[in-house]
């Protein structure tokens, strides 16, 4: 046995010196600096795109973090006769997958992705050149310029929503309420480790303006100045929230159901996608939106639409991407609360506010900022998670 072990060790050493040296592509620092280099505005007409796409044939393969894309793509197929293969995958997994697919150059890889989590997207897919930020004239005309890189397809919002069966919203008017020991164990949200946008929200709190807002809100709530035990008010709030019995979930659907179920004697509050709130009546949930939450009622984050660097159907992907921005392609979303097209011509669903209105109370995910600071936040959460 001893001999065997020695042999094993020897083999490992020899192999480790020689063998696996080329797993990671050497694409570390080719990040372009100037915005002009980030993307080229394509001038091909839509009809030409469609014609070329039809030549390419199908199926155009899509990965998306959200399911509605499937229905929009179905409209595209019905109209132009190009098949689409749709797959829904979570953000972390998708980024990993796309990077691997492009590196391996697999056949049948993805063409078009709709992905959230700007921090990882930027670091792992854009900066490495695994995906292309495709923009054409018409898309550029539909969107505000800051949405063109990385190309935002739509926004989603996650807001504080509470169970209103036994109370009005007065309990949840200040964000520090979730850290109040009187509200122990009532706050639920999705694990930052299982969905990056939540970590990005925490990261965004580190922005100076948000730190200030938090400090002010603390004074509003308790009447005294915040005494820091951590570096700043953002860390302080997160730590206190965790210590105050924060419940982590794996899915917004479940959190929504858990918070809103009728007949509970606990007044739960959750931070989850507004879209889940829309299904409350059908599910018999009793929920209200805490949009008075001071100073921050939640956050909204972009879902980016990007094309694989090794796409087998690049024109199909381009045409489809453009199509989904148009009111015609956006049709499946029109009744969805909490989803907002980056094309401001597409109005939000009935009963919902526009993204411009929301941005007054919600924090917007900024890809550059979160890409820079996300790691610090993860380390911090790591240190308080248990």
């Amino acid at each position, binding site marked *: 046995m001893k001999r*065997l072990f020695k042999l094993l060790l020897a083999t490992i050493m020899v192999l480790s010196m020689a063998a696996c040296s080329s797993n990671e592509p050497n694409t570390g620092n080719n990040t372009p600096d100037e915005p002009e280099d980030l993307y080229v505005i394509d001038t091909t007409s839509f009809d030409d795109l469609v014609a070329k796409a039809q030549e390419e044939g199908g199926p155009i393969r899509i990965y998306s973090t959200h399911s509605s894309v499937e229905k929009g793509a179905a409209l595209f197929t019905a109209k132009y006769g190009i098949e689409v293969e749709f797959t829904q*995958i979570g953000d972390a997994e998708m980024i990993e997958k796309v990077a691997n697919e492009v590196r391996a150059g697999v056949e049948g890889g993805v063409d078009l992705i709709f992905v959230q989590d700007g921090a990882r997207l930027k670091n792992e897919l854009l900066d490495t050149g695994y995906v292309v930020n495709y923009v054409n004239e018409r898309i550029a005309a539909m969107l505000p310029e800051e949405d063109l890189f990385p190309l935002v397809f739509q926004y989603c919002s996650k807001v504080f929503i509470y169970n209103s069966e036994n109370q009005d919203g007065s309990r949840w008017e200040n964000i520090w309420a979730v850290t109040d020991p009187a509200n122990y164990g009532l706050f639920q949200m999705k694990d930052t480790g299982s969905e990056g946008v939540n970590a990005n929200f925490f990261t965004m709190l580190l922005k100076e303006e948000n730190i200030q807002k938090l400090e002010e809100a603390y004074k509003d709530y308790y009447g005294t100045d915040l005494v820091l035990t951590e570096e700043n008010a953002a860390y302080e709030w997160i730590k206190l929230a965790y210590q105050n019995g924060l419940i982590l979930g794996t899915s917004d659907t479940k959190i929504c159901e858990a*918070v809103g179920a009728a007949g509970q004697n606990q007044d739960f509050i959750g931070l989850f996608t507004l879209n889940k709130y829309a299904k409350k009546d059908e599910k018999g949930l009793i929920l209200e939106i805490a949009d008075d939450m001071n100073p921050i009622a939640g956050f909204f984050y972009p879902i980016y639409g990007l094309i694989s660097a090794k796409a087998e159907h690049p024109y199909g992907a381009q045409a489809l991407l453009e199509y989904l921005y148009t009111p015609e392609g956006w049709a499946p979303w029109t009744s969805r609360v909490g989803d907002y097209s980056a094309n401001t011509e597409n109005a939000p669903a009935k009963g919902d506010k526009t993204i411009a209105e929301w941005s007054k109370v919600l924090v917007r995910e900024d890809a550059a900022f979160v890409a820079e600071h996300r790691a610090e936040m993860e380390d911090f959460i790591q240190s308080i998670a248990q």
Partner: protein
Amino acid sequence: MKRKINHLLAFLKKPQNLILLFFVVTLGYLVLFPLVCIVKDTFVVHASEVMRVKGSKIGDFTTYHWVKVFADKNSATIFYTPLFNTMKVALGACFVAISFGGSFAWLVTRTDLRWKGILTKLFMFPYIMPSWTLALAWMNFFKNSTVGGAQGIFTALTGIVTPNWFAYGGFPITMVIGLHYAPFAYILIGGILRNMDANLEEAAIILKTKRSRMFMEITIPMVMPAVLSTFILVFSSAMSAFAVPQFLGLPVRYYVLTTQMFRNLNGTNPGYGYIIALVMILIALIIMFVNQAVIGKRKSYTTVTGKSANISQFKLKKFRTPISSLFLVLVLCVSVIPMISFLLQSMIKIQGNYSPSNFTLDFWIGAAAASDKINDKAGILINADVWKGLFNSLKLSIVAALGAGTFGFLAGYAIVKQRGTWLSRFVENLTFIPYLIPSMAFSVIYLSMFAVRHGPIPALYGSFAILAIIGTVKYLPMASRSGVNSMLQLSHEIEEAAMIVGVPWWKRMTQIIVPIQKSTVISGYLLPFISSMRELSLYVLLVTPANKVLTTILFQYNEKGWDQYANAINFVIIVFVLVINFGIERLTGASIEKGVGG
């Protein structure tokens, strides 16, 4: 020189040597090489870590991960606490599995327990179910108000609110994993109890040994090797269990090594993940070596079967019905009742509301509704995705089972034929290593190994082949162990008799060895098949949309909270595996029990 060449030629003339060499090469690449890669990956800056390791480029050498994991102010939360939790859970699961499975084995083999036939069949259910579905069943039953939502069935029925420690965290994780692997204990310990020479106990009785002393000093030591092998199997399985702690631990932020590894691998610091994987492999290796040292050779347990096949059964007397009923209830609780709960949950619209008006078959056969409705997907029986997943699961499981079963049997054959040589021992250990590598770490490594071309080996990422390979390799230990065990029982003379008359090797295999070992061979296929059908963590990172399997769809649905669909799919998987399992058992006489080596 010439003599050496002749030696070599003589060596290569024996098919078993060729087989061993084949395994050295292929497993060297598929098992040892990944180990090496894990080691390497702990020292490298990965794409997602550039923002963390300041001033580094991808692929740079770094000790950052090691320092952070072991010697940082956050090391406790990153590593030590999860490690401690893992140990607690794994040891606890071993205790649960061995005490529950072992006592059940004793009752079945040694007493006049009632309803043995049905009990033993039902007892296998938890093993056949994907392990995390038992966790979901636990939640369905014992959920308390901590996480909100509809209350658990137990609370609904009794009005008793389950305490937090009972509903989430270490205790339920331990229980669920323990119950999931209790069939292992039953199979292995029951196997020994059944085959154990009854004379050993009779000799003790004649010498006026008290029942208690006999049990403690004869029966227990005799089943000790089985207990130890159960311990190793359950411990390493429990240690690498991912989905159960993910579901039951997360709400109260109870992390174990696997969930921590998943966070890290799937998050922005895979380097930590690789270190954790390495630690887990090391722990498993240490346990294996300790085990070999403890059992040793001195107290060899080769049992000459005695005459008294019909050992007198212990009469439970007035306890017969109570004990039988107790076990019936327990076994039903972990077999049929979870299934009923899955079926129920798949048919109700609003959770926790069991009134008839709330029941629907939409989630089974309804067409997809608009995207703002609950039933926004097609019912699973008319859902093309689900069918494709089922087809892929079947295809993959069959290929992996054929691969693992065939190679495992060949490995068993060659290992036994050359027993005593270092080559044989080397291959035997090599075939066992995949068992020790946590599934998730294994798949992560394959992901990066096969993402690019290595010499003649093409990039396999995204292909069906990579799934087939990892399935085959991961389940090889099961098949090779049962192969070794069964070949040990087959006398060399049987093959030698054919060699004398010049029957070529492949004919000896196909017409003599395999037919004799038929039921072992088929069992060697059955266990990998079932394991693969309900495997998740091994495949979850490697599947691409084109070849996603049913369990990954199920996990995704579970995570997303599409409970009704998820429960329906889960029910389908379990029923499917059960039907196949009992069908094969009936047709061929093979069984999981034989596959495990009982």
